[in-house]
């Protein structure tokens, strides 16, 4: 298999916060290949959101550098950078005073697309995220949590980014909806040939979705690898514990179903 080009290269980035160690990042390096789906799995307070925000400069690192598509992001106009990268927020962050269509159209509008092109793009995106077209004129408050998250994904995809950053995007919805959203997104990732970094505290989600998993703890990446590598041979106790959880849960569920003692 030929070596693919690196889409995102994170090199020795750090950030310290006075009195808030939960947000801090210490000397983290991570390469993400084009078309790859990387999950950063971590518990809260591990610095994972800070790391993600470095990439589109929502937060500036105090040390190290990040290369996106060959450019050092520190030298790129942050506004242009953000318009070229899709970002899905943990809290969704849909604009409550704008309709679904207007929310989806926001980045194309900022980029100055003409109206016809924007309208056609909105129809296409709602289709893509499997939202009924008649929701276009509705306001976010009238949507379910899962629908809002789909609109959030559509908004991030609107201007046709090559890279998607997703900060616990499916955290706020129930398990069944989450499952549907996650697998739908994985399909989109393939179809649109995206490069995705997904942050999650849910190891099962990481294992099921990602090509590669990086486990973060205390502001550093402890270990990374494919689910297949990481699950059987973790080097750190913390990673072993974390990785063992999905299997333990599955065993307990299995035992409950068959009635046998665990």
């Amino acid at each position, binding site marked *: 298999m030929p070596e693919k080009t690196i889409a995102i290269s994170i090199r020795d980035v750090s950030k310290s916060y006075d009195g808030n160690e939960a947000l801090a990042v210490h000397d983290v390096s991570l390469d993400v290949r084009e078309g790859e789906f990387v999950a950063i799995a971590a518990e809260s307070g591990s610095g994972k959101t800070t790391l993600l925000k470095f990439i*589109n400069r*929502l937060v500036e690192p105090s040390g190290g550098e990040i290369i996106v598509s060959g450019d050092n992001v520190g030298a790129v106009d942050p*506004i*242009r950078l*953000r*318009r070229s990268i899709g*970002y899905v*927020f*943990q*809290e*969704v*962050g*849909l*604009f*409550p*005073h704008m309709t679904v269509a207007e929310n989806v159209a*926001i*980045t194309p509008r*900022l*980029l100055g697309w003409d109206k016809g092109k924007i309208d056609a793009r909105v129809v296409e995106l709602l289709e893509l995220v499997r939202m009924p077209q008649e929701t276009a004129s509705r306001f976010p408050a009238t949507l379910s949590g899962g629908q809002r998250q789909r609109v959030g994904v559509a*908004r*991030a995809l609107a201007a046709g980014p090559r890279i998607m950053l997703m900060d616990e995007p499916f955290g706020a919805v129930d398990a069944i909806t989450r499952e549907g959203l996650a697998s739908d997104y994985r399909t989109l990732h393939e179809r649109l040939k995206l490069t995705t970094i997904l942050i999650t505290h849910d190891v099962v989600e990481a294992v099921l979705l990602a090509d590669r998993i990086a486990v973060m703890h205390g502001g550093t990446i402890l270990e990374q690898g494919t689910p297949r590598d990481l699950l059987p041979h973790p080097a750190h106790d913390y990673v072993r514990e974390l990785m063992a959880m999905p299997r333990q849960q599955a065993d307990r569920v299995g035992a409950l179903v068959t009635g046998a003692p665990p």
Partner: protein
Amino acid sequence: MPQLDPRIAEALALLPDYLGQHVILSISAVVLGIALGLPLAVASLRSPRLRFVLLATVGLIQTIPSLALLALFYPLLLGLSLVTTAMFGVQFSALGFLPSLIALTLYSMLPIIRNTVTGIMGVDAAIKQAAIGVGMTPLQSLLQVELPLALPTIMAGIRTAAVWVIGTATLSTPVGQTSLGNYIFSGLQTQNWIFVLFGCVAAALLALVVDALLGAIEIALTRRDRRRLVLSGVAFAIVLLASLYPALSEPRGQYVIGSKPFAEQFILAALLQQRLGDVHLSSVERAGLGSNVAFDALAGGDIDAYVDYSGTIWTNYMHRTEYPSREAILTGIADWLQREHGVKMLGPLGFENAYALAMRRDKATALGVKTIEDLARQSANLSIAGDPEFFLRPEWRALQRDYGLAFRANRTLQATFMYRAVADGEVDVISAYSSDGEIAQYDLVTLEDPKHSLPPYDAVLLIAPKRANDMALAEAFRPLLGAITIERMRKANLLLESGAGQKSPQAAARALWDDIAGAQ
């Protein structure tokens, strides 16, 4: 159709002018308050220190009593006007609209700034982060996300400001700005409670209507309902135009007549306006000006004519403490006015409104008191009542010094109660104004002042420097000179007394003129 109370009819006749001026002033102040307040509030979002200073400043302004704030800008602007006149030859009117506008604008800024700051700071942090995350510039985020989301809070601030300003604008009357406050101030001075009530109700209704319309606009904006926005916008424009129409369509008065804040002055100002009207000269009134404000306004050309009193000019403006004869004072003030201010004294009207000591006629006869000298011999057994100002004035000190007056009791009472008290025998002597209608009504006598301790207060008609050679104006007023005897003035003043037959100043002025014209 039932007959309308004549005072209500009179009030209604004045409504177009008062309401129009009130609306122009209030709207200008709120618009200016928004224009200044919004950018300041937005600018302060970046710096907590600036925000603190800004909020503290507008908060501090709010603690200044509104009347004082309004009054403060008149001398400030007057000084500024003198400076600009001297330096650039630019003169502007320090009276009326400008000081009222500045004070009310400052007043309107607290709710606008505070609500804008609160509204924008209250926008969900996740939404602000999302705005930056999708690639908005800070300005785009402000205009497209933060301001629209803060809109209900900002509009609430604007509505509060509008209601405050409409209420407070009634206080701009004493600095020479016509407003619905003219009803209240003239009503208070003439005890015309119907006028007072009319002014309050009109201002309250205006505030309610404006608040409701702004509320409708707010709902339309938040729901982004274009039909509703157009409807409420049109309704707002209709109310605005309807109240402004009379003020805009009528030609502005050629002449400005001033008056001080008491009943007699309102009658005389109305009389001067009616005289001008008779020869087809239009005029507007600056009613109820403070005493010094009126004189400064005349000297500065903000008003064209008003009636003052020789004793006031002599003691208050010229700071003279000795009192020569009536004639000498009249000559003295005419010279001084011409020399120092270019103000023309057209002449005395024929009556005095002086401080005088008054007693019930039967009591004075019984005690054998005709002069203040007679009174002084018995004052130890008698009581005196004066208006709140009297016992602090130089006249009272002069009376005590020259006659050795020392009463058993000194009481302070409002003018109305003072007359009742002496009529009922509750007090023996009062400090009266010689032209008060109550002197005749209660059959009182004023005591002679053989030592001339009390200065004469001849009513004199003063003309602004720029109108000194205006023959048409002088001719219109000439029939009044020397024609208003003390009896006529008392009779006219009495018409303003509260009660069933209470007249408006305009009606009293017409009766006074009929009286003068009938005798000629």
